[in-house]
């Protein structure tokens, strides 16, 4: 018959020794943050289509752009390729441009 181990066994996922108050804990989640308010409609709006740099994204966004031209011609689409590292948020100038000249953005395609 199997017997219990004499010794207590440490839990590899434990974080009892972490000082939760100042360090957080392993499973501690990010604070919730609200999304931006949505537009009432896209009619007459400018939407930025941002290629974030993954292979094939540009061609896919070509199709998204073509769909808007065909089905929602009042929407102006602006294509941009994010410069910089595809894994970093390093395109502040582009975000400023979108804020200044656009009303919405479609980013992609992560793969």
């Amino acid at each position: 018959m199997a017997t219990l181990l004499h010794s207590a066994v440490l839990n590899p996922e434990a974080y009892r020794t972490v000082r939760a108050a100042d360090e957080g804990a392993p499973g501690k989640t990010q604070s919730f943050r609200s999304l931006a308010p949505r537009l009432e409609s896209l009619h007459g709006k400018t939407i930025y289509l941002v290629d974030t740099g993954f292979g094939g994204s540009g061609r896919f966004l070509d199709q998204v752009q073509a769909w808007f031209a065909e089905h929602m011609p009042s929407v102006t689409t602006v294509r941009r390729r994010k410069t910089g590292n595809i894994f970093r948020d390093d395109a502040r100038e582009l975000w400023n441009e979108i804020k200044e000249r656009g009303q919405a953005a479609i980013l992609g395609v992560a793969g």
Partner: protein
Amino acid sequence: MSHESGEIEQKYGIPTVSLAGSNVVSFGIGPNLTYNTGMPLRYVGVPFPFSGQPRSVLRSYIEGKDTVSGKPMMAAIVDGLTKPLTAEERMSGNPPESTPEPRLLPPDTEDHLQLLFKERCWTDYNPVIIPTEERVAAMLKGTGHKPDEIVKSAAGTFGTRRPFTVEKVATIAVMAGAKPAYLPVILALANEVPYQDSTTSIAEMVVVNGPIRKEIDMNSGLGALGPNNDANSVIGRSMTLIHKIIQGYDEGVTGFASLSNPLRYDNLCFAENEEALPEGWQPFHVQMGHKPTDSVLTIFTGWNFINSTGWVEQHYAPQNLMRDYMSSLSGMGATLLMDPSVAELLNNVQGFTTKEKLAEWLSQNVEKIAQSYWGNAIVSSMLGPLGEQGLEPYASWKKLPGDAVIKPFTNPKGIHAVVVGGKTASVWFATDFMPGRGVSIDAWR
């Protein structure tokens, strides 16, 4: 991409839709929300693969369904920008604290505990040593650091918050089968989380330099890259367990390596054969600015590992075959792992009196065609944007005809050599592994 979408939403007040392949979209919706952005970003899923598909297929994707909601894709995109926010999407503030895992597991049998460790993915699926309090306490004698000292906080995938202690690393060291003397190396290893993950077959390689190699009997000689040494094997295994338990790598949840990589089984853990270096060739850590008496661990990251197959032939100098094989690598960086006998030939016969001279020659002589260079998606996505910004030589290379010949290893400092092996064959590996920073093992003694 979640970072970018989150920033545009949060700081600029602009609504976004994030497009992601169906292969990874669950990461954006799940772990990214929980541990990263804190925002339930509106994702639309694109059938995978999308890269390399003809326009007709991409068009069919546009006319097809969003893989997340099942709605027509363009309707889902339009809804994503216009549909009013739900209560969840408007939420702000701190989420309720999750209940912490207890420090100790409930009493159980050895067999049940082995099963539990497998069920919780606290294993590489070989049996682990059950980390009893006594074993962990004995392991902790391998370091002067206190058990409750925080090793690092930003430990989760993509640097998300997941702090861990010295005791936790000692627990994992026990599970891997380590001796207490290995603990400073394993702590240095843990200090470098998060390790690189990718949908591609990325892998890591752990190279140890300095006096610690001999102190813990690491193998840098005969059979050093194989499963032939306790310290090499167990420290390499520890990295796998750290990746899973500390970093939280969870296949299909936080990790999506399509094939993964067999090199991940032991993370290529070995020591450099410093004693067998030809005169004038420095140990890797000394090349990187450390003292010879420092004990240093370096994690290299890469994909490819090409074997010379046979020994050096009389009519073809080793650097020539290295050049030929390296032409199939991306050009972003390379590390040659070579037997001491190869290093001696390169030094004594071919005149490469330093590792740096060999790197310089390879940088000037490895060639490939531009089309093949840009055909590598990692090169294209990492270096292509630099070319778009006008940075040379990438800007010029982007304009070249496909069959134009380029020298992809532009920077000889990106080509490294590590000497390892037992001098029973003049063999070597050409890899595209690139080193991270050297980590002090002495700091964790």
